[in-house]
């Protein structure tokens, strides 16, 4: 029986509200913190009533942090730039390498194919710290420590498996007949790949790219060990707010708000690709 009484509807709304509060509360709280001084944040008991200030944001953008103990230089905008550069380049490289590889794994049966695909995924099983010690030694020898190239390379450990496995699934969902039809119509393999397979897997590629971007953006450990101040992303740069004169909660909150903005914007933009149907009714049913 598929009737839903008004009681059921009420319970459902209550449940949804609870979930929303649970997930959104921290974000709202952080946003409120970012508009306050350390004193108002730390007062007891806490209160929602305060005079909003934008000093935290201006401090981050101008790079001048004035505290009771004096003035401090901040690298936040440089960190932000590093984050964008590292994430964008890593995802771009992963897409260039991962999408054709995903296609190959989806379409061609070759010897050890499954094993190779699995090995690539297994990179994500190992704890990052396990990989880091030998890696930092190699990087020293190769001269890759504290370079963008080195970091982007290491970030492939995060991005590539994700893209490979998600996009592979999307390629597998495209009927091979659609590709066959395009080839028989007189097009080369490469044209078929670029004109048919890639456009049809676009929702999957967008989803995988977005996820990879978020993972890269949020990475902490790799950059902490392998990069020094001028190459560090925001995640590591946030450590600078733990100062000799105390923890700058207001600035940390403002930094978090600024640093989640790009991923949030990207997620909202990519949403329509994520929900767009894959086959769009070309094949029967």
């Amino acid at each position, binding site marked *: 029986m598929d009737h839903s009484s008004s009681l059921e509807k009420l319970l459902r709304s209550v449940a949804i509200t609870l979930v929303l509060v649970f997930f959104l509360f921290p974000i709202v709280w952080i946003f409120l913190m970012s508009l306050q001084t350390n004193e108002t944040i730390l007062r007891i008991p806490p209160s929602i009533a305060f005079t909003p200030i934008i000093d935290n944001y201006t401090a981050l953008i101008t790079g001048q942090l004035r505290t009771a103990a004096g003035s401090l230089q901040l690298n936040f905008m440089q960190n932000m730039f590093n984050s964008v550069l590292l994430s964008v380049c890593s995802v771009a490289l992963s897409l260039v390498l991962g999408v054709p590889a995903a296609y190959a794994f989806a379409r061609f049966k070759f010897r050890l194919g499954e094993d190779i695909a699995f090995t690539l995924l297994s990179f994500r099983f190992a704890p990052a710290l396990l990989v880091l010690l030998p890696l930092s030694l190699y990087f020293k020898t190769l001269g890759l420590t504290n370079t963008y190239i080195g970091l982007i390379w290491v970030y492939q450990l995060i991005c590539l498996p994700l893209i490979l496995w998600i996009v592979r699934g999307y390629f597998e969902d495209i*009927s*091979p*007949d*659609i590709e*066959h*039809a*395009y*080839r*028989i*119509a*007189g*097009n*080369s*393999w490469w044209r078929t790949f670029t004109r*048919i397979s890639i*456009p*049809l897997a676009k929702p999957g590629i967008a989803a995988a790219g977005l996820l990879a971007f978020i993972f890269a953006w949020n990475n902490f450990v790799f950059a902490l060990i392998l990069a020094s101040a001028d190459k560090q992303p925001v995640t590591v740069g946030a450590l600078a707010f733990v100062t000799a004169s105390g923890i700058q909660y207001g600035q940390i909150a403002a930094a978090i708000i600024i640093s989640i903005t790009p991923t949030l914007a990207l997620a909202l933009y990519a949403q329509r690709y994520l929900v767009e149907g894959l*086959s*769009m*009714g*070309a*094949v*029967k*049913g």
Partner: protein
Amino acid sequence: MSQLAIKSLTKSYGAFKVFDGLSLAADAGEIVVIFGGSGTGKTILLRLIAGVEEPTGGVIEIGGHDVSDIAPEHRGVGMAFQNFALFPHMSAAENIATPLRAVGAAEDKVKAGVARVAKLLKIDHVLNHAPRELSNGQKQRTALARALAAEPQILLLDDPLRNVDAKLRFEMRLELPRLLRQSGATVLYVTQDYKEAMALADRIAVLANGQFVQMATPEDIYMRPATLGVARLFGDPSINTADTAIVADGSGVHAAVGGTRVPLADSYRSLAGRDVIFGVRPESVELGSSGLEAEVMAVTPLNERTVLLLQSPSGWEFLASLPSSAATIPEAGSRVRASFAAAGTHIFDRQTGERLDG
């Protein structure tokens, strides 16, 4: 010279043999229907010819040339798929235009070409629609139009009417022969609907167990099936069968069927003593005042015919198919006498299933 020739083609997936030496030659403009049940590899055969899959052995020749080393895009074939396989991100017109664009035709040539096949297939009014906006019938016509657009020498049609409703399937069945003739292409048409096969084919190639068991005109296939298997595949209702043996004595040649003696042509005398299967098509069962006595178990109308399930006193069940316009249709529970018209009667070897002629 045949337009399309297949010579001792084999295809295996690991230890599983799909084709075990297929050979076929089709002339320019000929319509050959590849007929077989599901899982007989009909679609794989088309894929091998199109070049999107590679054979394990054997040769495929198009226009007299071995095409083993020619990529699918250069084989000059057009293909329509059972699931339509339209490009979802292109309009119907762009779908149809792909084979023309692929050869770099000028824009006005492309437009003219699309317009020509669209008119032929009566889809001119939906050319700007995306595939998802088309009805199943329109999708199917778009897929056909795309296959025809570049006027290929070889046209491969993989059960194109499978996924459209009965009414449309019937309309297309009447329309297709003219369309295919106009295209001038050599057509390989795959189906598992025997009526479609008979309606469209110049020749039918019946595929079973990795081989063509019979390759002949619709008339030969229906009137002179090479094996019991072929006889069973063609005809609705399917052919009635009974295990029996041929007896020849002073009174003539006959076989015991359902507890009575069915007289056979004298030419079967040489087969006396053989264990055989007697087959008679339901429409060749005639009800009258003489012959095998039987009880009518059920009366089941079938379009303009009426099918009777009959049972002889010995327990042999068989079907009779009468035109519904027949003077009298017996009722369930009544008793009738049935005889078998020679034209629809066939004798098969019980071991091999092969047709035996007197």
